């Protein structure tokens, strides 16, 4: 059985069919790519799997456990971590607090610990903090731990998103355009981070990307989505040479 199984997933926004009969099976440790022009429905696929929207039809399961109908926090706790294309950070919180917050489900000290500051709470909070520092180290912004997130440049905010998603200790990580708005240098650093994360945690990753260089280098297999439907699927070479893809997508954006 695959780690993540999605079958015949379809979603309508009112009359608009945003996703149609989407299938994907991801094995542990795989890196998969999802490309497609703007508005193709890539982010919607993430939102459907992570429970932000409910699929109109279809089956989604993680390690055989059904995810359809669960709340986002339940799906997240089940092992599905993600970042957001449009940076959903908490505007009044420090970088460190972001990465600690994502460990929420492992804080088992309960209300008693929260109210009275028990030893168990101190231990778990300290552990969470240490782990947060390690992850910030990994993404290269441990020096900014106590900054408010809004003080960070755009590229570093993307790293916070990354560290935060990793802090959940997910089994599979969804990255929604993790390099959007980054300069070429930052792009290379982010690629390195993704590689390292993959190696260190053996994570399965599903990557939405606009920049083909990144997807082509990182992913074993790539799906191309146009108007909510997968029009081509295969290895980077196959995708690059697929006339349908070139026609629908690469033709316009190959320069990138």
């Amino acid at each position, binding site marked *: 059985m695959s780690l993540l199984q999605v079958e015949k997933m379809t979603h309508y926004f009112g009359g608009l069919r945003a996703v149609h009969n989407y299938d994907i099976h991801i094995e542990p440790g795989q890196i998969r790519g999802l490309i497609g022009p703007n508005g193709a429905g890539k982010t919607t696929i993430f939102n459907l799997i992570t429970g*932000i929207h409910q699929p109109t039809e279809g089956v989604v399961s993680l390690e055989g456990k059904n995810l359809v109908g669960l709340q986002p*926090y339940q799906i997240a706790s089940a092992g599905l971590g*993600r970042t957001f294309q449009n940076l959903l*950070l*908490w505007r009044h919180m420090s970088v460190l607090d972001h990465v600690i917050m994502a460990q929420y489900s492992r*804080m088992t000290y309960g209300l008693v610990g929260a109210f*009275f500051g028990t030893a168990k709470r101190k231990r778990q*909070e300290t552990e969470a903090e240490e782990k947060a520092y390690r992850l910030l180290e990994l993404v290269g912004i441990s020096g900014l731990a106590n900054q408010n997130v809004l003080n960070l440049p755009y590229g570093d905010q993307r790293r916070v998103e990354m560290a935060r998603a990793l802090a959940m200790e997910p089994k599979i990580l969804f990255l929604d355009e993790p390099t959007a708005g980054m300069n070429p240098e930052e792009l290379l650093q982010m690629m390195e981070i993704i590689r390292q994360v993959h190696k260190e945690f053996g994570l399965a990753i599903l990557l939405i990307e606009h920049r083909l260089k990144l997807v082509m280098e990182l992913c074993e297999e790539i799906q191309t989505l146009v108007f909510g439907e997968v029009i081509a699927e295969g290895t980077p070479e196959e995708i690059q040479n697929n006339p349908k893809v070139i026609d629908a997508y690469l033709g316009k954006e190959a320069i990138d």
Partner: protein
Amino acid sequence: MEATSSELSAPESGLKSKIGRLFSRVPIIGWLFGALVAVILEQIVGMPLALALGLPKIPVLFGFVTVLKKPMLVPSTMLFVLLIYFLPIVIIARLSLEPANRLAEKLINFSMEGSVLIHLVLLYAILHIWAEVSDYRLLILKFTLIAIMVTVSLNVINGYMGEFSCSHPGFMALGAYTASVFTVSLFVNDSLFGQALLPSFLGPFLFPLGLILGGCVASLGALLVAIPSFKTRGDYLAIISLAFLFIVKSLIENLEFVGGPRGLSSQPDWANLPIVFAWTVACIWIINNFVRSTLGKALNAVRDEETAANAMTVNTRRTKMVAFMFAAFWAGVAGGLFAHVLRYVNPTTFGIQKLAEVLAMVYFGGLNSVYGSIVGAVSLSILGEALRPLELFKWIVIPLLLILVMIFRPTGLIAFKEFNVKKLIRPKQSPGKEV
């Protein structure tokens, strides 16, 4: 009006900045020593000094009230405050700089908890001695402490969670009536509930139970508000909680067994200063613990970006419900104390005006800040008393002040500041090293 209010605050702020520059190295314990000496001094020489200065009695609230009532007495009142409070505090804080820092250091090294306790005992002693001068002071002090509880707890909802709740006076009412019914029916021979059921010596021991019971009933009330409000996203809470406030009020008005609109009286006199002080400290301590834990900070995550919080494993709905009930609990406890300080409650007490007061304290003091709420509650309580001679005009001055704060600091005076007791009580310089 404008002139009077600026007159009131001018000497205070000028004084503050000067102290700030000269005395930044004085640890809290140094200030406490100074204040202790000041209140003791007032006990001993306050009355003769007041008479010598031509004042009828010791100025009750640092002269604020006199300023408005009898402007002729302003110079002598200011002299009194200068001689009794300002000079002793400043001189002692300055003189004890070295030993106070050494003491603060020693205490902290000895035990954090012990040091906090000693600071609290000192603070209590100051308040106690200060309040002994008149019953009026004692009453104001108790109400101020209660206002702190209500404000800090409302800040959990309106500040930390970022929702707008209007039901806090309703929760206070639930707590006030529950605790009152508990004590009056069990320990008082009363026309409403008949003979006392338990011997009265048990009373002070069971009083906390009554307060907690009041808090729990308030929490249950909060659950009724929370279920429909937090079901879906959107700003339903403001409206539902406002409706709840009116429902509670008219419910009590129609409940004959608690006295209906006439109210409920003859609560036993158990809410003395140490009890109110202890509950206030407990309230601040527990709420501050909560909002600094990851469970509590989840409220901030929910407020700032709920979708992200949910996607990062935070059960957002439960987080909101728990926080709402938790805050209501403390409003209920505060209500119970309020009823036993006044020894009388009626439904009108817990209406829109109370709501306006508490909201003002929260937004004036600062959102997302326990520290700010303490400052907001204390300053507006004192201001409210000080402006009492203005009668109706009080309700022009206070809103005006609020509007000014909102213009210049939209989130309040001391918003988004962590209340860190450890930082507060630590020495301000290492001993022996004069800078």
